[in-house]
């Protein structure tokens, strides 16, 4: 009996030590990034009308936002700081600041972000999500907050210079659950599709040669080019991809609130600041400003296919 007891005590101590170590590192881990912009908006504190989701969020004191953790420059986890950073993260903090609550960021990959809104795991989704009519059946969108374009990424010296070159025998990588599954199916029907969980996998695959091309939003591709400048973005834009902030289905007041907040960011220069920091300084290009597109325009770009 004595030997047994000793083993159990040691095992128990190990477990406790592990747990203590895990707790000890809670501070500064990803999860809460809180208010980034130093609270100047106190005079304009937003009063949420009673009974709206915004009121619930204010009552809780925090809002859970699903972002990408592996898609620089929009949402990526930085192991050195332990925090998530990026354009989507900054927009999320901006929205949270307006509400006067803390933003908590969780990872939302392409195929689970809509279920997250449906079941309440996330209050908002800011995860490079394109506005489409099919998705509108499951969730609600704010007005467009960014306009990306579908492009193709190829390695140095590739023969592929546009969508027409993606013919028989070529492989293209994109994320499972993204709009590109359908887009590539239409525009490059002969190409073989490699569907993965995360764009970081596509990045790995184009670098190691298992795929000939990656196709997705230009901002994501730009993130890859910044990390590996032997890659190049080629061809005419395949699609226009307006990103919207996602919120649970039929929450029109929340969607309106988000649209207003986004428009405020256009007006007060915040949006331009974010753009410059995360995209502009790398590409040197001017964006198509999202204020030019309305929500209806976005729906027209991606009309109903499956959920009609």
């Amino acid at each position, binding site marked *: 009996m004595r030997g047994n007891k000793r083993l159990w005590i040691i095992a128990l101590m190990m477990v406790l030590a592990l747990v203590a170590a895990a707790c000890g590192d809670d501070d500064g881990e990803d999860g809460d990034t809180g208010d980034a912009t130093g609270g100047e908006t106190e005079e304009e504190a937003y009063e949420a009308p009673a009974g709206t989701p915004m009121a619930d969020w204010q009552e809780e004191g925090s809002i859970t936002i699903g972002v990408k953790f592996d898609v620089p420059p929009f949402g990526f986890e930085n192991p050195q700081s332990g925090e998530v950073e990026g354009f989507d993260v900054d927009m999320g903090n901006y929205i949270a600041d307006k509400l006067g609550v803390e933003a908590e960021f969780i990872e939302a990959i*392409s*195929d689970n972000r*809509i*279920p997250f809104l449906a079941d309440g795991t996330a209050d908002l989704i800011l995860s490079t999500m394109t506005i489409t009519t099919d998705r509108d059946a*499951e969730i609600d969108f704010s007005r467009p907050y960014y306009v990306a374009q579908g492009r193709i990424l190829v390695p140095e010296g590739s023969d592929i210079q546009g969508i027409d070159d993606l013919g028989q025998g070529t492989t293209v*990588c994109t994320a*499972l*659950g993204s709009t590109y*599954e*359908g887009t590539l199916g239409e525009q490059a029907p002969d190409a073989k599709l*490699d*569907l*993965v*969980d995360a764009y970081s*996998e596509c990045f*790995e*695959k184009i670098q*190691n*040669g*298992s795929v000939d091309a990656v196709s997705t939003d230009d901002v994501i591709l730009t993130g890859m080019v910044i990390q590996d400048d032997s890659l190049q973005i080629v061809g005419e834009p395949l699609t226009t991809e307006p990103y919207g902030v996602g919120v649970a289905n039929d929450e029109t007041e929340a969607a309106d609130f988000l649209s207003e907040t986004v428009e405020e960011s256009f007006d007060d220069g915040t949006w331009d600041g974010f753009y410059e920091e995360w995209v502009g300084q790398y590409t040197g290009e001017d964006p198509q400003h999202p204020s030019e597109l309305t929500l209806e325009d976005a729906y027209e770009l991606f009309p109903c296919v*499956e*959920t009609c």
Partner: protein
Amino acid sequence: MDRILPIITNNLDIYLSGLLVTLQLVGISFVVAMVVGTLVASFRIAPAKLLNWIGGFYVETFRNIPLLVLSIIFSAGLLRAGVSLGKMSAASAALGLYTAAYIAEAIRSGVSAVGKGQIEASLSLGFTYRQTMRQVILPQAFRTVIPPIGNLIIAMIKNSAIVAGSIIALDDILKVARIVNSRTFATNEAFFWAGVGYLLLTIPATIIVRRLETRFAIKR
């Protein structure tokens, strides 16, 4: 579950192609696993300390590492190191080498279950080591080894979902379910049919294994 029938009727072609991919993956991996597994088992039981150690190292490493990690190493890892394997090859290598560790153990237990006494007896009767193995030990071991290997095949069918779902990205049964789900949002239905697909493979296999078990049971 209201769209239960349309989901399968509209997507029968891709579900079937997913089934074929799974079968192909399991088939090739099985061959790899048997070849490598037998080799490793022979190392483990050989009368040479170094070979024993190599075999042991192989078994302990490949049994304790997650198959998902192995899949990444065999696909992206090897490609970066200059070894160019196609998708199905990388996937079968990962699944095959992983399962080989278990097959080696099954063969080793099968052989040792036959009993040292028999080895000594036949050696003293003048059989060479080789003849002992081939004519006395292995035929008996074979009968004890069939059920575990049968069960390992079932395990391979289940594990195929892991290699296919890794960065290797093969369109197997589970991948097809996820694709159908991302298009139609009919999660329950899409996954139900994937489950049916796997059970169509594993349940008959389980029944066959149980039959073989009773048929080959050694009455002691």
